[in-house]
């Protein structure tokens, strides 16, 4: 039985993507008072069979505890968010009609719709919104930190929600368009059965937990332009081979594909492949302070590793050539990305050996390197061989899948192989991988230069932020904090009756952007 690294990585990306957030592309206020769907409220298509790579997870359907990323469609089926994001993350009204920060940037006022009712009949108002905000902040969602800066949320009147922050948070509005903005009926807070205002209702009688989830259209949905189907069936495929079979057997209308191969056959079966670069794969050189592996503290050693790895070779061998070689953790659409930096670390074992020699490791050194079953063994074979070619001995040891994240994020390994999200914005990238508190800065090394760029990203005007992003990215590449190999391609398939618009910054397209084709 094959367990896919890709499937595991896609699942992991849920948490990775969304550790941090940004709103550099977020308007500071909005005056529109009605939602602006890009499709008219035509008659719904009867059924959407959607392929999922994972189940809702530990949060179930409790809005305050739900995950996002690959699991976004579950929540988006049942719950509306306060704000809605377009595919390129422009923010539009949803349950909130308008929003505005005060001059300190610490108080956000949102106008709340007064004509929306939960599917259990409970009216939605600002007080309900305040309760949901505080519940998510205090809940067990893996992204509860999205609202970590929320000091309080109160309804000043039934149509005005006031959120007070303990510190400025440019990510807040974008997060309110994600799981942090889900609105659940207070009457169902203590009931695992979800009750929202959203376009669909979970049909529990036709749902098998962790396997198949059936949703039926909410007949009284207040924003019918975002509801496209009478029924949606979401089927979980933990095994990419079975998802491939379901696609080849034309059992799915749309699916985020978790497999490594079979792309041509799936297109041959009549599907359209929507491809987008969503993540990068490579080595995380965690121990830049040299706590566990002293050589890694020397930038020349980290640069040597970057020269020692044959990125193109790995792309062909491990990803079948589906991707683009890169040196950067910043995505192609992220501000700060530089085409010039892509050639910074060509494959050059000779140069790598020289750099190691300069650093005093001409005789090589040994580094502890964890392996895990969901990363294909070929990855470790090839990387181990290429490191050995320049004198670095990777001392591999097996880590159980359930312990791998703990080992990486707990600062227990100097180096690891992983696939990580390339967020839409530099601010997200900073908070995910670079800030001193960032989860993927596992040793939480403080770097004054990086921190100063972080401050600029958070507070400066957009032009300065872009400049800061460029300089931050160049600094990270030069300091070789990571050893990216390539940007991988995420593939979302739709059949002839279905179309999709992928979402910038989220691996799973938003549910309302999966639509029936016209005619």
């Amino acid at each position: 039985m094959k367990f896919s690294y890709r499937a595991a990585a896609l699942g992991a990306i849920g948490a990775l993507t969304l550790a941090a957030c940004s709103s550099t592309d977020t308007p500071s206020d909005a005056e529109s008072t009605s939602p602006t769907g890009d499709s008219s409220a035509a008659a719904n298509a009867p059924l959407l069979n959607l392929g999922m790579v994972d189940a809702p997870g530990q949060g179930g359907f409790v809005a305050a505890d739900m995950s996002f990323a690959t699991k976004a469609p579950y929540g988006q089926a049942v719950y509306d968010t306060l704000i809605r994001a377009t595919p390129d993350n422009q923010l539009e009204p949803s349950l909130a009609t308008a929003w505005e920060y005060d001059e300190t940037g610490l108080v956000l006022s949102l106008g709340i719709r007064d004509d929306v009712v939960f599917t259990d009949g409970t009216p939605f108002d600002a007080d309900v919104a305040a309760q949901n905000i505080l519940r998510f902040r205090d809940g067990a969602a893996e992204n509860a930190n999205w609202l970590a800066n929320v000091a309080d949320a109160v309804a000043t009147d039934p149509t005005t929600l006031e959120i007070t922050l303990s510190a400025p948070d440019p990510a807040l509005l974008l997060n309110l368009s994600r799981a942090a903005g889900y609105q659940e009926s207070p009457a169902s807070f203590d009931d695992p059965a979800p009750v929202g205002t959203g376009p669909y209702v979970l049909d529990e009688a036709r749902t098998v937990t962790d396997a198949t989830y059936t949703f039926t259209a909410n007949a009284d949905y207040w924003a019918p332009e975002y509801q496209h189907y009478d029924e949606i069936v979401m089927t979980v495929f933990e095994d990419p081979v079975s998802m491939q079979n379901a696609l080849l057997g034309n059992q799915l209308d749309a699916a985020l594909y978790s497999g490594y191969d079979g792309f041509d056959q799936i297109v041959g079966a009549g599907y359209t492949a929507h491809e987008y670069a969503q993540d990068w794969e490579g080595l995380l050189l965690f121990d830049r302070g040299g706590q566990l592996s002293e050589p890694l503290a020397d930038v020349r050693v980290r640069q040597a590793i970057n020269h020692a790895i044959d990125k193109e070779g790995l792309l062909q061998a491990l990803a079948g050539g589906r991707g683009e070689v890169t040196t950067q953790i910043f995505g192609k659409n992220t501000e700060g990305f530089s085409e010039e930096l892509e050639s910074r670390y060509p494959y050059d074992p000779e140069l790598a050996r020289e750099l190691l020699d300069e650093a005093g490791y001409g005789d090589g050194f040994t580094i502890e390197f964890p392996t895990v079953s969901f990363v294909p063994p070929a990855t470790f074979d090839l990387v181990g061989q290429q490191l050995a070619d320049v004198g670095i001995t990777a001392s591999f040891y097996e880590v159980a899948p359930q312990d791998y994240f703990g080992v990486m994020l707990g600062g227990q390994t100097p180096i690891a192989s992983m696939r990580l999200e390339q967020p839409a914005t530099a601010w997200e990238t900073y908070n995910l991988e670079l800030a001193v508190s960032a989860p993927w800065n596992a040793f939480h090394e403080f770097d004054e230069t990086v921190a100063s760029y972080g401050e600029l990203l958070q507070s400066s005007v957009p032009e300065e932020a872009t400049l800061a992003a460029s300089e931050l990215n160049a600094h990270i590449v030069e300091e070789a904090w990571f050893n990216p190999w390539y940007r991988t391609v995420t593939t979302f398939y739709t059949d002839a009756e279905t179309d999709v618009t992928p979402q910038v910054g989220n691996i799973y397209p938003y549910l309302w952007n999966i639509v029936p084709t016209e005619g």
Partner: protein
Amino acid sequence: MGRFITRRVISGISLLFVISSAAYLLLYISSGDVARNLLGPTATDEQVAAKAAELGLDQPLLTRYWDWLTGALTGDFGTSWASRAPVTEVLGGRVSVTLTLVIAAVIVSALGAIVLGTLAASRGGWSDRTIQVVSLIGAAVPGFLIAMLLVLFVAIDLGWFAATGYVRPTESFSGWIQTAVLPITALAVAGVAAVTQQVRGSMLDEQRKDYVRTLECRGLSRRSIVFRHVLRNAATPALNVLALMFIALLGGAVVVEQVFAIPGLGKLTVSSTLTGDVPVIMGIVVVTVMLVVAVNLLIDLIQAWLNPKVRLS
């Protein structure tokens, strides 16, 4: 008979206790940082600690096991850590799916084996040799490979059956046929192969016995001797193999359900093991042990019915 059943039930309960205790201990040793894995890499340490406390992971092993055991005795197997649904609810919908597939596969195995085994034993010659070779191949090819070949050629290329998924017979019988035939076939191939060999061997042994010659001398037809006497006497060892097959098929369902994306006990076993969902895994252990005990008891009773010489007490 009553004493026999009581004794077997008591030994089954003892077995259940021993296996569940061992499973709980093994899960305790190998579970890793469950709270961290459930919450993901971006959760704060405080969140992880709160989750661990919520799940009772901060309690000593004995306390956790005692809580689980006392709950289980009252039918409360707790709540799934991975999905928050009650374990009984998670298992409830799935046990019937797996049992339907496995029982169907056992029936197919039994019928197929009786036909092929009888044919091989009574005809001999090329029929026997062909059936033996085919049985050997059937026993040698792994179930998952058969499952994948069936999906590729029968479901995808020919389009005769669904490639993945499962429809309950209560919802739609034709839907059930569409989704269940291939997994049942994949499960049954090894069963047919193994039991055929057993039926063939037992029948050949029986045919050499004196009572068969006596029956022949008394003028009974060959058909009557084979089906009314030889097959009945040969059934005892075949039934034992069939019982073992039932238990093996429960294991085989893990792989087959994964290939066909069937929401059964097997698929749940994989997913709950990967997430370290202890309450669900323990629920699966209990259900599986109970099934094994029940099947063994049932086989004993059938054997007594088929062959009065088998003394249960």
